[in-house]
């Protein structure tokens, strides 16, 4: 959230180990979502109602500018309950100290709901009756659901009879997020906004497969329900925020810049033994703005926040580079471990038309990766590669032509040769990406040592990968263009920036420094 000049980030943290457990609320602040200052833990497990974990929660801004925080506590008997907390000192822009409401918990699992299936309350939004409404994910057998509660004071709640929505077979709905998006305008909307120019998004984190799913639909305020526009891609069975490692993501309305910002947890893809030796595990993605893609009408667009551009250093431009079939072209950009890549690809039109289609279905994850040649793909970039290409992570497009002549474009990340190490994930991630008539294929990639965030078609399809090369590191990392298609040559135009490092500072034990900070 953005409060008195600072972006605040509260996160699930284990102070004792580089694995999950002993969860408390970590806290960090930033002026620009890029450079961060660590603050003391915001909340620890010091009450009976959160003794076994201070879990996920959400902040709501009241009309007077004050904040209320609702969060899930795992009680000393491991029951999941919802608790209320608020800043101890609202005049402190750093919001260092928090107070837990003495009457906690404010919500306990209702009848018919398992006491371990009731967690992650959302930010509240105003109903047409002027009450606050929240939703909390749960499940009944294997049907994922989201319960709805109305409140006037965040202390007393009335549960609505139905649920916001339910989808059979999806299992437990964690970290439910519910928010409006503008159909036509390129700005974010406050969570309470509703109206004809607005669609609502329901997002869930599925416990069963550890992926975040979303669907776009219509919210009915009268009875607190939501209906998807396309039941075939309903929440949990359709589109994902990210086809790689990305979970428990959450949005907030940034009133500072009138945008909705999405933030997700990127876990590790290495072994826990490695995590223990590293002494840390898990990172946050670069924050992304979220917009409704009114060109497709079915997708959201995610894009790294503009502040990331402040880390751009030296630029290298490559215009109209022709990549013949079966070739790899090195791009001389200097050290290639911290990069921002913006690329556009044009594929040989004749080949697109001439190639015979087939009935074969393609999927990134079951394909042979970038080494498997098709008529019209794969082509793209090789990042975190070494000179000899013994290690490489292809980020690429693959165009499949159906027997009806229709083209379908896929966007993939291939980790199969990302590292010589044997204890890391080597899967191929990806998905179909809608490409509309007249659009070139476009790509944005943020490379940061072991993290790759890649965005296709302006953020219609996004893949985040964790890779752990042993050779393609630091000064030995390179980036290449490649085209492994058999029939079509490709022309690429790119801008590649070296990226500076962000400053992430520990909490200073310095009164004067803090005093100066608060006056910024």
């Amino acid at each position, binding site marked *: 959230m953005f409060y008195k000049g600072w972006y605040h980030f509260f996160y699930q943290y284990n102070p004792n*180990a*580089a*694995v*999950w*457990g*002993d969860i408390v609320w970590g806290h960090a602040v930033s002026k620009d979502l890029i450079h961060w200052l660590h603050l003391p833990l915001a909340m620890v497990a010091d009450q009976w109602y959160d003794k*076994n*974990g201070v879990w996920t929660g959400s902040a709501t801004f009241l009309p007077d500018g004050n904040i209320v925080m609702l969060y899930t506590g*795992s009680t000393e008997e*491991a029951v*999941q309950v919802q608790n209320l907390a608020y800043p101890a000192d609202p005049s402190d822009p750093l919001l260092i100290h928090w107070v837990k409401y003495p009457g906690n918990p404010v919500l306990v699992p209702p009848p018919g709901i398992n*006491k*371990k*299936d009731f967690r992650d309350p959302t930010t509240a939004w105003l109903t047409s009756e002027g009450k606050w409404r929240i939703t909390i994910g749960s499940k009944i057998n294997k049907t994922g659901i989201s319960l709805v509660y109305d409140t006037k004071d965040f202390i007393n709640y009335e549960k609505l009879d139905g649920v916001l929505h339910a989808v059979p077979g999806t*299992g*437990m709905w964690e970290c439910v997020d519910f928010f409006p998006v503008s159909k036509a305008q390129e700005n974010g909307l406050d969570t309470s906004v509703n109206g004809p120019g607005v669609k609502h998004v329901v997002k869930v984190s599925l*416990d*069963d497969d*550890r992926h975040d799913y979303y669907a776009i639909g219509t919210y009915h305020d009268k009875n607190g329900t939501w209906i998807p526009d396309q039941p075939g891609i309903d929440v949990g069975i359709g589109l994902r925020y990210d086809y790689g490692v990305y979970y428990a993501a959450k949005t907030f309305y940034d009133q500072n810049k009138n945008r909705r910002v999405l933030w997700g947890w990127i876990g590790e893809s290495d*072994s*826990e*033994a490695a*995590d*223990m*030796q590293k002494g840390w595990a898990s990172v946050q993605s670069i924050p992304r703005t979220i917009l409704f893609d009114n060109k497709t009408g079915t997708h959201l667009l995610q894009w790294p926040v503009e502040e990331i551009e402040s880390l751009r250093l030296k630029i290298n431009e490559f215009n109209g580079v022709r990549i013949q079939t079966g070739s790899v072209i090195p791009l001389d950009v200097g050290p290639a471990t911290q990069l921002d890549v913006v690329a556009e690809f044009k594929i040989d039109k004749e080949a697109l038309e001439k190639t015979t289609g087939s009935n074969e279905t393609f999927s990134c994850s079951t394909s042979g990766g970038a080494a498997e040649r098709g008529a019209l793909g794969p082509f793209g970039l090789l990042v975190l590669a070494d000179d000899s290409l013994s290690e490489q992570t292809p980020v690429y497009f693959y165009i499949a032509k159906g027997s009806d002549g229709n083209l379908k474009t896929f966007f993939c990340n291939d980790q199969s040769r990302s590292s010589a190490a*044997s*204890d890391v994930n080597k899967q191929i991630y990806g998905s179909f990406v809608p490409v509309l008539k007249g659009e070139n294929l476009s790509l944005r990639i943020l490379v940061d040592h072991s993290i790759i965030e890649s965005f296709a078609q302006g953020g219609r399809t996004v893949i985040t990968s964790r890779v752990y090369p042993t050779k393609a590191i630091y000064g030995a990392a390179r980036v290449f263009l490649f085209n492994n298609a058999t029939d079509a040559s490709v022309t690429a135009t790119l801008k590649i920036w070296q990226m500076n490092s962000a400053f992430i500072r520990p909490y200073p034990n310095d009164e004067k420094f803090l005093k100066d900070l608060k006056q910024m």
Partner: protein
Amino acid sequence: MTKIISLVIFHAVFSFTFLPVTDSATSLIETTCKQTPFFNLCVSTLQSDPRSSTADVAGLGHIIADSINGKAPATLNQIKGLLKSATDPNMQKALQSCVDSYNTIVQADIPVAFEAITKGDPKFAVDSAADAANEAQDCEKSFANPPKSPISDSNKNVHDLSVVLESIASLLL
């Protein structure tokens, strides 16, 4: 008359509370173990622990975690002992890698699995158990042939039990 009736009722209530529960408990053990790839290992491990007669699925998961908690530290000690007397540098390397693997199983994987099952966030138990199985496998793979693995049986046991734990934790999702 009323005294006899109340005695009969008391006796009936008394009998019912002490009905043997083994039948229903056995079938929970069986239905649970059928959903793991190592049915026999799962059943024998659970049945050898008296708590299994009254445990729910989460409780059965705890019992398996406990079993790994018994085997893994013992294997770790065995590895450390072998390391002390090892002279072949390849053997030393493999054993050292196994020390790392088993330290992870004992210090991270099993405690996380326990906590996650208890607190009702079983996906962390699934991931940790999967990691434990991988660690045991990594240890076994670190022995080329030669040197032959001196702890194959223990590695297989820990691996298979971890896979059982992963399957049981998945049932809780």
